[in-house]
Structure formats: structure tokens, C-alpha cells
């Protein structure tokens, strides 16, 4: 494979972003053109890299030094291309290109279109950096850049108070996770003497494993994933992030950025493997997130928020898969989820666009007639997500169920129940939005978007159907991946998982249909679910009660104690002595000159007489 092609994939969106922000920002059409072209080139180059073979296992391609302190610390900007990153490259550039094209319609009349596309390209650069990073620090760099591009895009409509607040919340919550991530990186480095993945991999082969230390380090690194992939307890930012434009939600907050946490865990799985304790924690956090987020999703009314909680839940699935030592299954689900969840978001965007920014599902209804294409494609994504046998989500979910069955029966049950809930709340959404009668005049006048909108939907719909087969087909998406899945499926539990998975699908879909078909408003109300288990309220109280209170106390201390009593008090005392400072009464300059002069005199005195 051609190293330059990989460098091109990384640098190309940066050039686009720089061109847009520095040169083309006054011209919306030029900016759009640059950004879309760059995303298409990126996809073509990624396909080129993907198809060019290059053997198994990691093959370091090229590095430029970034920080170099010899053997003590070496941080390169280096690319790591293996099956894992190739697969992810495809996901990011593929969904990325489709979202770029779709955005040209969705953001057509936005007054800050150039800024939007500039930041979208910045995001592509950051995300691809995470994918290609061959070391922890480089990954952290792009990790932060992804955070800032997400901040910029969530806050795209920054004059809106809620959007501005959501942007801040996303960035700060992520920083909380990154606090642990960086600390984990430091611990790994202090232990292995390197931050470069292959070098750490070499190191651990012969290393003594101190379980306590390694578990701590792995869990701290995991904190980064908890923030970025919005796992409990740092999940609160993702639903709010829906304040951003919908294509952004599809690309960043469904398909790619939030999956970065899972990708990172798969990348450093060779470390996670060392610590059974850390694996347990990771799988429990993932399972809990999957379950709780699914419960929250059952009671939401905003179409984007339902999808956002669904994303949380599915990310929990993936994280759980890593925790039960099945990173291959996690990546499989990441891959299929990227296509159908992007599809669902873009479909939701098409509806929101057609209904003049209406997002409440109870103000929709009957859209299957007025928005045929959107309906059909959305149906494909819907069925793929809820694990309809034969579609993409079914296979990847099944792989995780098998892994859970082999490892931990409780988690298996949690996963099955979550799958059932998923089928339930998605059926609720589907039935309320598309079936029955239109509940508002706007919903009566729904219409499909132009080809630039429906085209990406159609492509993603096809992917949602076939992605499962592509993965399983031996070697089609990288040998490492398919081998991992094959190995998993060869173990026990294959049939049980399939039966339970299918049952969950049937029960969830059935109950959802029975409960919601033909209803004009929600027949059930479960406040804890609707109020998202009161996490936001709890955190608001926590922040006000700790950080902000501490801040106020510190500020008070600083003003009245350190500055008030100590400084003024002590200078007052010196003043009382009238020793040196009396000269200050003549004014700043003279007093100062005296001190300076006294200093010089003292200096000379010491030099001559000491």
C-alpha cells in the first residue's frame, strides 16, 4: 500500500478546513465545494487503501517526529494501518462523504454555511487522526480536536441559548473523561516507557504484570472512552448534543465520533486483555448504559432524542462487547451501527427538514404516504437496528449476544432485554411517525427531499441490509475481524443467542405495535424514564453543591483572607513600623527608587566587606 495515500487521507480534510476558514469563508458555495470534494476524495483514497491489501497485522508506515526526548519520551505523528484502522477509515470516510453531500441540501439556506463546512472538514481531519494514530499521545491530540470540532458543530447555531449550553456541556463532560485518559496514558508510559502502540505491545510480552497498576491504568484510559462514547455516568452530553444540525448528529453523534471510544478500546485491547478486573468494570458499565439508555428512550418524544438514547444504548452494547473480550464483535456492531444509525438520523433530518423543524413525533404521523422514499429507507434502518433477522444489525447483535453468553449470563440477559426494549421503542417511533393519520397540517404536507438527500439515504439503506453479510464473508472486511467473529460463532451459545435475539425482536416489535398503533398521544407515562433517571438534575445539584460552591468559597477566601487579612494586614504591620515603607508616602516611584537603591547599597556593602 502506498504510504502517501494514507497521508493524503489524513491531511486532505485539514487542507480543506484551512482553505475554507482562511480563504473561502466569504463564499458559501466555494466552501461547500471544497469540503464536499475533499470528503469524496477521502472516500476514494480510503477505498484505495482498503483494497490494496498489505497483509495481516500492524505495519507501521511512516512517522514524523513531534516531540523527541530520546529514549525517555518519543511522540511521533505516525500512521498505523492494519485491519482495524482500515475498517474504521472506510466507515468514517464513507459516512462522512454521504453526510457532506446530504448537508448541501440540509444546510442550503444557513447563513453560516461556510463555517459549517469548514468545521465539518475539521472534524473529518480530527476523526481520521484518531483512526490512524499509532500512539497514545497522537490519539489524545486528535481526541481533543474531535472534541473541539464537535463543540463547534453542536454550537453551530450559537445564538441559541440551548445550543451554546449543549456545546459547553459536551466539551466539559468530555474533558472529565479525558482527565482520566491522560492520566492513564501517563501511567502506561511510566510503566512501559513508551506511548507508541506497537512498542507497548512489544514491551508487555516480557513484562511483569502488576495487576493493581495495570488495572488502574486501563480503567483510566477507559475513562476517555466513557466520555467520548457517552457511557454512564458521562452520558448526559449526548442527548443535548442533538442541538446541532441533524447531519452532524448523524455523522458525529451517531456513526463516528461517539464510536471513537469503542475504536480506542479495540485499539488498546492488548492492554485491556491484561486485566480481568478492568474487563469486568468495562462490561458492566457498557451493559448498564445499554439498559438504562434503552429505558430512557422508551419515553422520549423528540425524534432526535429517541435516536440519541438509542445511540447511547448501542454504544453500551459495543463497550460491553469489549469488556467481555470480544473487540471483534464490538467493531462489527460499530460497523453496522454506523450505517443504519446514520441512515436513521439522516431520515429524521429529512422529516425535520420537510416539516419545518418539527421534532416532536406526536406532531407527525402518516408520513409513509407523503414521504415514500424516506419511509422506505427509514424502514430499512429501523429493521436493521432492531435486529430483524437477515439485516445488518441482527448479525452484529448476535455476535455480541454469543460473546455475552459465553462469558457472563447476567450480561447476556441484560443484552437480550435491551434488544427487546430497542425493538419496542423503535417500533413506537416508527408507528407514531409514519403510520396512522397526519396529526398536524405540516405533517400532511411532508415531501421527500431532492436527490442529494434521498441518494445518501438509499445508499445507507442498502448498506443496512448487506453490511452484515459483508462482514461475515471471509476476509471481505479484513481477516482479523472476520476471524474473530468466526471464532466466536464456533463456540457454544450460537443457537441460544439466535433464538433469544429473535424472540426479543418479535416481543419488542409486537408490543410496541400493539401499544402505539393508531394512538394520538402516549398511553403510558413512566416519569423516571421520561426524566432520564434524573441524571441532569442530580449533576446540576452536584456541580452547584461542590464545584461552584468551592469556587465561591475560594473566591471569598482570596478576597477577604489572603488579600484582605494577610496582605493588607502584613503591609499594614510593616507600615506601622514605619521602617522602609515610610518612603512610599512620597509616591510610588520614590519609594521604589529607595528600595532599589537600598538593594544596590546592600549589594555593594556585601561585596566590599563580606
Amino acid at each position: 500500500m502506498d504510504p502517501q495515500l494514507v497521508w493524503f487521507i489524513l491531511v486532505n480534510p485539514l487542507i480543506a478546513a484551512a482553505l475554507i476558514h482562511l480563504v473561502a469563508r466569504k463564499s458559501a458555495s466555494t466552501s461547500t465545494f471544497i469540503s464536499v470534494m475533499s470528503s469524496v476524495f477521502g472516500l476514494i483514497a480510503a477505498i484505495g487503501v482498503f483494497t490494496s491489501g498489505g497483509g495481516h497485522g500492524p505495519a507501521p508506515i511512516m512517522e514524523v517526529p513531534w516531540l523527541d526526548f530520546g529514549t525517555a519520551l518519543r511522540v511521533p505523528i505516525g500512521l498505523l494501518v492494519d485491519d482495524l484502522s482500515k475498517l474504521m477509515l472506510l466507515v468514517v470516510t464513507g459516512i462522512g462523504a454521504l453526510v457532506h453531500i446530504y448537508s448541501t441540501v440540509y444546510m442550503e439556506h444557513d447563513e453560516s454555511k461556510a463555517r459549517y463546512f469548514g468545521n465539518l472538514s475539521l472534524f473529518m481531519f480530527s476523526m481520521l487522526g484518531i483512526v490512524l494514530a499509532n500512539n497514545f499521545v497522537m490519539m489524545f491530540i486528535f481526541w481533543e480536536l474531535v472534541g473541539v470540532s464537535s463543540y463547534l458543530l453542536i454550537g453551530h447555531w450559537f445564538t441559541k441559548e440551548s445550543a451554546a449550553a449543549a456545546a459547553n456541556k459536551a466539551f466539559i463532560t468530555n474533558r472529565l473523561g479525558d482527565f482520566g485518559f491522560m492520566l492513564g496514558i501517563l501511567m502506561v508510559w511510566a510503566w512501559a516507557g513508551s506511548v507508541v502502540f506497537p512498542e507497548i505491545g512489544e514491551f508487555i510480552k516480557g513484562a511483569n504484570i502488576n495487576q493493581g497498576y495495570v488495572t488502574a491504568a486501563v480503567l483510566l484510559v477507559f475513562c476517555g472512552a466513557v466520555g467520548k462514547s457517552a457511557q454512564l455516568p458521562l452520558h448526559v452530553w449526548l442527548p443535548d448534543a442533538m442541538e446541532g444540525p441533524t447531519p452532524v448528529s448523524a455523522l458525529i453523534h451517531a456513526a463516528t465520533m461517539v464510536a471513537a471510544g469503542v475504536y480506542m478500546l479495540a485499539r488498546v485491547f492488548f492492554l485491556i486483555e491484561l486485566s480481568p478486573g478492568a474487563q469486568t468494570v468495562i462490561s458492566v458499565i457498557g451493559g448498564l448504559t445499554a439498559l438504562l439508555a434503552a429505558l430512557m428512550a422508551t419515553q422520549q418524544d423528540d425524534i432526535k432524542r429517541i435516536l440519541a438514547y438509542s445511540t447511547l444504548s448501542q454504544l453500551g452494547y459495543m463497550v460491553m462487547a469489549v469488556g467481555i473480550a470480544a473487540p471483534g464483535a464490538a467493531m462489527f456492531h460499530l460497523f453496522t451501527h454506523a450505517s443504519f444509525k446514520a441512515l436513521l438520523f439522516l431520515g429524521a433530518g429529512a422529516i425535520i427538514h420537510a416539516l419545518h423543524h418539527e421534532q416532536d413525533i406526536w406532531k407527525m404521523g402518516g408520513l409513509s404516504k407523503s414521504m415514500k422514499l424516506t419511509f422506505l429507507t427509514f424502514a430499512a434502518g429501523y429493521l436493521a437496528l432492531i435486529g430483524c433477522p437477515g439485516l445488518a444489525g441482527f448479525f452484529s447483535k448476535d455476535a455480541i449476544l454469543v460473546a455475552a453468553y459465553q462469558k457472563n449470563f447476567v450480561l447476556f440477559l441484560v443484552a437480550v432485554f435491551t434488544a427487546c426494549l430497542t425493538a419496542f421503542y423503535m417500533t413506537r417511533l416508527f408507528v407514531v411517525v409514519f403510520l396512522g393519520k397526519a396529526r398536524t397540517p405540516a405533517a400532511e404536507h411532508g415531501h421527500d427531499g431532492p436527490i442529494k438527500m434521498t441518494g445518501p439515504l438509499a445508499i445507507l439503506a442498502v448498506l443496512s441490509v448487506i453490511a452484515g453479510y459483508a462482514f461475515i464473508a471471509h476476509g471481505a472486511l479484513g481477516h482479523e475481524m472476520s476471524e474473530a467473529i468466526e471464532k466466536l460463532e464456533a463456540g457454544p451459545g450460537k443457537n441460544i443467542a439466535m433464538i433469544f435475539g429473535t424472540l426479543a425482536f418479535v416481543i419488542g416489535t409486537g408490543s410496541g405495535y400493539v401499544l402505539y398503533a393508531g394512538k394520538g398521544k402516549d398511553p403510558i407515562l413512566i416519569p423516571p424514564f421520561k426524566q432520564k433517571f434524573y441524571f441532569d438534575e442530580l449533576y446540576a445539584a452536584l456541580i452547584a453543591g461542590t464545584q461552584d460552591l468551592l469556587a465561591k468559597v475560594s473566591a471569598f477566601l482570596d478576597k477577604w483572607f489572603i488579600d484582605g487579612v494577610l496582605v493588607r494586614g502584613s503591609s499594614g504591620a510593616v507600615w506601622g513600623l514605619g521602617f522602609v515603607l515610610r518612603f512610599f508616602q512620597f509616591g510610588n516611584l520614590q519609594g521604589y527608587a529607595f528600595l532599589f537603591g537600598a538593594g544596590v547599597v546592600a549589594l555593594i556593602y556585601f561585596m566590599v566587606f563580606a
Partner: protein
Amino acid sequence: MLNLIVLVPIVAALLVLLGAPARKTAFGAAVIQAVVALLCALTYDKSGPQFQFLQWSVIAAEWDLKYFLAADGLSLVMLVLTGLVTLAAVWVTPTIEKRPNLFYACVLFISGGAAGAFASQDLFFFYAFHELALIPTFLLIGIWGTGERHAAAWKITIYLALGSFVLLIGLIDLYLAIPETLRTFDMLKLQDLARQHVIPAAAQTRPYIFLLIGFGTLISLFPFHSWAPGAYASAPTPAAMLHAGVLKKFGLYGLIRVALPLLPEGAQHWSNLLLVLLVGNILYIGLVTIAQRRLDLMLGYSSVMHMGYIFLGIAALNVIGVSGAALLMFAHGLSIAALFAMTGMLRQRSDSLAFADLGGVGKAMPFLGAAFGCAAFASIGLPGFANFASETLVFFGAFKPAVNDALVGNFRIATVCGLWGVVISAVYMLRAYKAIFMGEPSKAVATWTDVVGAARVPVLLLIAALMIAGFAPKTVLAFVKPSVEALVPKTK
């Protein structure tokens, strides 16, 4: 070459006092200073730590006292910082109604004094140049300041005068700790003496603590910081930029240049104390910063807070940490200068800098919104800006020295606190940014005109420098590292 960097602003200041056109002269001097500093950097031989561009004239031969300028990589980076910030500071200075000539002369004296302190390799002039720069800072705040300027000027004067006095005692004590026959003011010779360990360990603790408190006060080391926020809030824009951006770095530079190499055991001895104090800078001041409701005060406190990271790098006493500290001195100088410059632009348009009175500025002034965002993100350590690379080095440097592979050590605890500070700074900076720049502009704010044309240049200059050093930290580290390797004590 170095004479130009140091003396051009001083001569220009004198000319301005004598009646030369103030702004033009100052601007010319600033351009010359910046260009010459960059030229020096371009022609500097980076292969080793050796001092270059030597110039001297003997003043008192029997004490080995001389006017002696020379630069190694560390000095040079500080000189480039001085040049860039001076240029930006003069550029953004608005029309001065009251005694403009004295104003510009003060600004130039600060710049020349700071450059002199960074370029002097004679202990006496090192100290004296800094004093030369301090006095005009007091005047600028006292005469042209805003708000409670008299109180602020008064406080900073007393405080920094006392700090300098403690520093002077420390320097004298250090001088006397050197065996009598070897005593010299020549900092190059002192550095050689350091390598021969001429000062016994027992004699190092006292001068070091004087230097730490003395330099520390100048740097606003907790709890000697309370002069800083008020002074920066009251100071006219160029004074805040030059003091927070450049002059405050003198203390840090002094610790690295003088205290560390000559008193390594002293530094070891007091390292736990320093760790406690710097955690005070990071966590305690960080929290105080969160509570601020005015942009100028918030930036003042944030600048105090960020000193904690530089101290952490210095405390690490290894090449990674100290190099990170040096890079952070450069990065912080640029970012805080940019932030203060833009605060000045807001002040020209608004009577109040309270968050409650602002809002929606990003819509009314897109350029200022974007540029302030860059500088704000730089200051909270976003990758792409030099601050991130330097903070990362500081953390790596500080995390290493855990004794015997123990999981927890004092340095590691301090590093954890430092990392938590990164969260804190995101909180206050993003809250402030949201309060000022996001939301719908009020009627008054909507009429504000954006920064246009040449007025953008100084801000862009600073941000560009931050990005160059952020994307490729090697551009700065190549200068700094050899010097740091020579300065950092090689302990067991």
C-alpha cells in the same frame, strides 16, 4: 545584534520622552526589536547549548562586573516572545489622550528592560534590567489604568518591590555562598561553577528559598499572587499584555537560569513546598477563577493559575519537565497577550466587562469571536496550539519522578491535580466564552463594529505563532532543549 533588541526600545523611549512622535517611534522600535529577535533566531546555531551573539564591556573588573549580553536557546526564545508581544502591544494601543509620550516611553521601557533581563548574562544587569521594566509598569497602571487603578497600582508596587527585595537578598546570599575566590557576576562562569558543584548542599537551602519566594512573588506564586488579578484588570491593555505575557516570565526564567543550576540540592530540598504552592495555583486559583464574573479579572486569575503548570515543569527537575515549562512560558506569553489585547478591544466598545452585561458579541463581531475563541482554546490547552504541547511535556516530566516505581508519589499527586486543573480551566473559559460571545446580541451589542483591517494583524500574529509552535513544537524546542539540558542538574 542583542544590543539592538535591548537598546533600541530604550533609546526610542528616551527619544519619545524628548518629544519624538510617540506612536511612530514606538512602532518603529517594536518592529526593529521583533525583526532582529527573529533574525537572531534564524542565524542561531542550534547544535548545542553554547551562548552566542556575545557582547560586553567591563564595568568593574575587580568584581568581574560587566555589561554582558549573550543568548542561548532559552534566552532567544524569550527574546522572540518579547519582540512579538511588544509589537502586538504597541499595535493595539488605542489613542492615548493623557500624556501619550510618557505612555509609550513606559511601554518601551518595559520591553527594553525585559529584553535586557533575558539577554544579560551578568547577574547585576539581569536584576537591574528587570527593575527598569517594573517601574514603568507601576506608572502605566497608576496613571492610565481603569477602575480602581490607584489601589491596584499601589498594591502591585508594594508587593513586587518587596518581592524584588527578597529576590535581591536571595541573589546576594547565593553570591556569598560561592567560595570567595570564585565569586563572579558572570552567569556563564556561574553556570560552569555549577557543574563543579562549588556550593555545598547545606549552603543551598537558604538562598534557594529566598529565590523561590522572591521570583515566586514576581510570578504570582500562591499565596503571593493577590497583586496580579487586580493589577491586570486595571492595567491599560499594553501594560497587561507586556507584564502578564513577558515580564512575569522573568521570574520563571530566573528560576531556570540561576536557581536550578546553581542550587540543585536547594531545589530538591524545597520541592515538596513548591509542589504544595503550585497546586494552590492550579486548584485553588482555578476555583477562584470559576467564581469570577468579569472578563478582565477572570483572565487575571487564569493567568495566575497557569503559572502553576510552569512551576510544575520546573519542579520536575528533569529535561522533559523544564523544557515543557520553557515552552509553556512562550505559549502562555503569547496566548495571554492575545487575550488581553482582545479584552482591550472589547473595553473600547463596552463600559463594562461583566459577563452579565455582554452576550452575543460573536454575532456582532465574528472576527473577534473567532480570534478570541482561538486564544481561549489555546490557553486551556487545546492541541494545535503551543500550550498543549508544553502542558503535555510538563505532565510527562512531572509524572516520571515517582520514587522506586511506587504508584503514588508527591509528584504524581501534583500531576493529578494539574490534570484536574485542565478540567477547571475548560469550565471557566467556556462559560466565559458562552456568556460573552454566544447568544443573541443585545441592541447595544448589535451595533458594535468588528475589528477590521490592520487592527487584526497583532492578534493574528500572536495566534499564528501559537499555532506554529503548536503544530511543530520542535521549532521552539530545538532552541530550548540544549540549553535546558545544560541547565538542569544531572542528579542521580
